[in-house]
């Protein structure tokens, strides 16, 4: 911690500020800090970008790897860090400017959100398994508590359910970590990766399975994602946007980071993940067809997109991986947009059921338009960013001559259209005369507008950022480079 600008700030700053929260309450700085912290981290990430693009940044804490603890900021994790902090800024700004419910503007929410950001940053950056577990728990615990913040029955129920299922996931993951430690005697990711191939086959299998279930629950893959809709429905949409926008993305990144790092030949695991991703995508999109609750519908749509990203990343080819990372970013943007718009609509129309939304788009034209924009982007319609990333993924599959994922992705997109357009139609239903409440909190549209602008910009000119994703994909896929960087050339 000698250098002023190092990756460690991504974890340290939010933690420090969160624990010093009593101070900020006094100074009435809660809200400015909630926005300012991720904003500062985002600025830091941008400042580090040139350095990261030349070589991964390694931050050793106390002792050098393989024994010590270290943080690793390479092109891939940079993307995630930037994304997480950007989402933090947006949600923070929304809570501040949007005059949201008071319980989200208090000290507890402040602490929990910053902890969530710190945990996600940590998971993405950390270079050893034990810290990975620790950050996973930090992020998890703050997420459970965020769900339960509202203190009414649905919220508490959601929080409790989340706690239970999250703990189970953590246990599976912990088992895997223990087994790895027993087998290799190491916890540093790079060292484990080097020794992983020497673990006997069945044990590899067992570890893999434990990991898969533990992280599968966290990343919301198909047979393990039945908890998701309940939690998303019970939480405030702004909180749900954090889950869908950053928490899941961090876990997904961890999952694939581990897969590509540990396995010299990720073919089999990749195929498993592709299969799971495809099933997740199709099942979630199908189930979403019948959802009558906006938040629940968005939750299923989120699952579907996660499935798509898993499918793309599992293929392990540079262009699908780059597309997958890009889609991760896009999906975060879109879900921020949709959930925050949903928050605005929910405040005006009380109920989240489809029947009560009839004509909402005509009563709240701006919110309606933003919802439509988000829906178009999530379905991957041009000229919005979802299209660019989907095209990239499809192109990757086509280049490789593998067409079944193309067919499935397009089929899923069609089913997805089936329910999103149903909502859009209801939003513009002409018949009802909706009671228009005085629209307070115009500023709430500012962060959403920024996100919408980004979605359009990335859709029209994705070439501005495509290098970042290609480099990210390379560093995610290139196992030896990581090993060399961490352990030295001799390893």
């Amino acid at each position, binding site marked *: 911690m000698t250098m002023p600008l190092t990756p460690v700030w991504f974890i340290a700053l939010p933690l420090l500020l969160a624990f010093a929260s009593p101070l900020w309450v006094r100074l009435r700085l809660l809200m400015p800090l909630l926005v300012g912290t991720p904003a500062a981290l985002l600025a830091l990430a941008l400042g580090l970008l040139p350095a990261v693009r030349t070589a991964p940044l390694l931050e050793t804490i106390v002792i050098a790897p393989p024994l010590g603890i270290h943080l690793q900021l390479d092109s891939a994790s940079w993307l995630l860090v930037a994304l997480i902090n950007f989402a933090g800024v947006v949600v923070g700004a929304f809570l501040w400017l949007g005059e949201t419910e008071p319980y989200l503007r208090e000290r507890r929410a402040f602490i929990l959100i910053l902890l969530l950001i710190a945990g996600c940053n940590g998971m993405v950056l950390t270079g050893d398994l034990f810290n990975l577990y620790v950050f996973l728990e930090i992020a998890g615990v703050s997420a459970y508590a965020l769900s339960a913040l509202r203190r009414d029955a649905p919220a508490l129920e959601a929080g409790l*359910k989340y706690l*239970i*299922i999250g703990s*189970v996931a953590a246990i*599976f993951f912990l088992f895997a970590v223990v087994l790895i430690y027993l087998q290799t005697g190491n916890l540093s990711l790079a060292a484990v990766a080097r020794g992983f191939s020497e673990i006997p086959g*069945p044990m590899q*299998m*067992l570890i893999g*399975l434990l990991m898969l*279930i533990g992280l599968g*629950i966290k990343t919301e893959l198909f*047979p*393990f994602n*039945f*908890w*998701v*809709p309940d939690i998303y429905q019970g939480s405030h949409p702004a909180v749900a946007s954090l889950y869908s926008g950053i928490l899941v993305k961090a876990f997904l990144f961890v999952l694939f980071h581990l897969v590509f790092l540990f396995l010299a030949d990720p073919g089999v695991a990749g195929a498993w993940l592709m299969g799971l991703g495809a099933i997740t995508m199709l*099942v979630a999109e*199908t*189930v*979403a*067809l*019948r959802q009558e609750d906006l938040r629940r519908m968005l939750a299923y749509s989120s699952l579907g997109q996660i499935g798509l990203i898993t499918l793309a990343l599992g293929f392990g080819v540079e*262009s699908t991986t*780059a597309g997958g990372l890009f889609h991760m970013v896009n999906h975060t943007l879109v879900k921020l947009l949709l959930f925050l718009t949903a928050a605005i609509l929910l405040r005006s129309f009380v109920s989240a059921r489809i029947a009560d939304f009839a004509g909402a788009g005509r009563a709240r034209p701006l919110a309606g338009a933003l919802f*439509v924009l988000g829906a*178009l982007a999530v*379905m991957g*319609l*041009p*000229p919005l960013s979802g*299209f*660019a990333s989907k*095209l*990239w993924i*499809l*192109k990757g*599959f*086509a*280049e490789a*001559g593998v*067409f079944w994922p*193309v*067919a499935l992705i*397009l089929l899923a*997109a*069609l*089913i997805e*259209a*089936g329910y999103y*357009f149903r909502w*859009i*139609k*209801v939003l*513009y239903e*002409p018949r009802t005369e909706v009671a228009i409440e005085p629209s307070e909190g115009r500023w709430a549209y500012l962060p959403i507008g920024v996100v919408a602008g980004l979605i359009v910009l990335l859709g029209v000119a*994705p*070439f501005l950022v495509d*290098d970042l994703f*290609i480099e990210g994909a390379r560093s995610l896929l290139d196992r030896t480079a990581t090993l060399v960087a961490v352990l030295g050339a001799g390893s």
Partner: protein
Amino acid sequence: MSLILKLFFFAVSLSPTALLMGWDGHLTWTLLDGVGLSLTLTPLAAFFLLLLALAAPLVALPMLRRPADWPSLALYAALLAGMQLLLLAGDFVSFFIGWEIMTWSSYLLLLRSPRTEMATSQSYILFNLASAFLLLAGIMVFYGLTGSFDIRPLVGPTQPQQLALALLFGLAFLIKVGTLPLHIWVPRSYDEAPDIFSAFLSAAISKMGVYGMILLLTLFPEALTGLYGRLLNGPAAGYLLAWVGVITAIVATYKAISQEDMKRLLAYSSIAQVGYITTAVGVGSSLALGGALYLALVHTLVKLLLFISVAGIVLQTGQRRFNDLGRLIERMPISFFGVLIGIIGLAGMPPLPGFAAKYLVFVSLVDARWLLLLAAMILSSTAAFIYCYKLIYAPFLGHANSAGAREAKEAPWPYLVPQVILMALLFGLGVFPGFAIEVLIDPVLTALRMAPLGGSSWAVLTTAYGGYDGVVLMSVFVTAFVLVTGLFLLLRGRMRRAGSPYDLSYAGEVPTEETPLHYGAGMGRELRRIPLVGWILRHSSQGFYLGLTRQMRAAAGLLGGFYAGNPQTWILLAVVVFAVVLGLQAVTGGI
């Protein structure tokens, strides 16, 4: 402010015209790693851009009437931008982007109508997205084959490759043009869309499917012949396509006859007309493609004219069903002429250009020796007379059947100006059938490396099978008409206007106001007694799609059962999966 915005919007609607006049170049725009957009204007695209340039301002004009619906105007601008991108596309990515922008912006425009139902909007967007995604799948296959997104002929494709491409692209475009059995979204959406926008849907947007079909032919080195060889004197694969088109035309014509709503009738008639175009594309010879393009041109003009006239009627009377209208000829004379010219063009009667287009297609069928198709096409184009007559009789002739129809005034000028322009265009093209051939169609045919059709002058339409002279035809007819009318009026005797509309020879009775005298929607009902027609009218593909929807919902319900909120189940499932996989592993691999 509002005026400036409106002027700006009108300027936007003229952008296709400007593009058509001013574009000479090539524009590229990098999208992603290895994906670039390249924009260029081919002669084929220029032809369809011309159709767009005709339709865009004429539809924009009535849209500007007060009170303007600003979201509609913005969406219309997006729609135009998308369609221009689609037409300028030199590569499939820009083609697809344009296609999709067109799809969603037209969908959102459809929602602006207060009459749109959920089933309509859902079928519109799902069919169109299915079309778009099939297109995208085809593009991916194309990319897999060539390694590039550029639109250019394949080099030495094998038959399975051609078949895959033809199926994916073909289905995509057939959905867009709305051939049987993929047409189910068309009548609903044309009917329930905002009245003016229906004109654009039918006139311009459906033509993009035609553009796609012709573009598809250019991808294959031997067009459709390369697929399954030749049948008689045309491509065997095209024979199938041609039958699809003709059957579409026949069924849609009978459905049109049985409609009781003006816009729905026009919608079915659009399906039928596009069916003819599909047939012509299937024949694929130079004559047939010329005919297809000609039909597309005429259909654009005619459907613009008819939909705008009908929109005027609906605006002024508030009625859209045949039973509720009548006797508007005296109240809306210009609209009457609009519809009259429109149906003459629609029915393909000489001397309007509809005949020239049909003539080319008929001759191309004779040339291909596909006489059964010729007979089937005659069936639908003769049956079309009935709905054409219904379309002019029920609103304009007979007896006024509602207060709205009795008190209507002529439509406002933003509706009339486009009608007058379109009538003039149709009339001009009818007198000079060779003009469209020589100036508009021949460049396309030449670019497609086919024999041009142009004749010695703009007045004549010539083919190897003979032709006709539009100027002579028109002058003979007009002279005869003037002569006959003049002579008639010179004869001794006087004309007396009937004392009342009920002064009729009504089977020996004296009809009163209560007597149902308007034949309206009843027209064509007795056609059901003809076995074939009755069979067609009794059947519909709607049940299939409803069943599909039901099945999807059932599947959604079944799968949704997993997501019941019960943490024990979730954990149990996780553990069970864990155990089962381990168990399987133990059995197969052995731990």
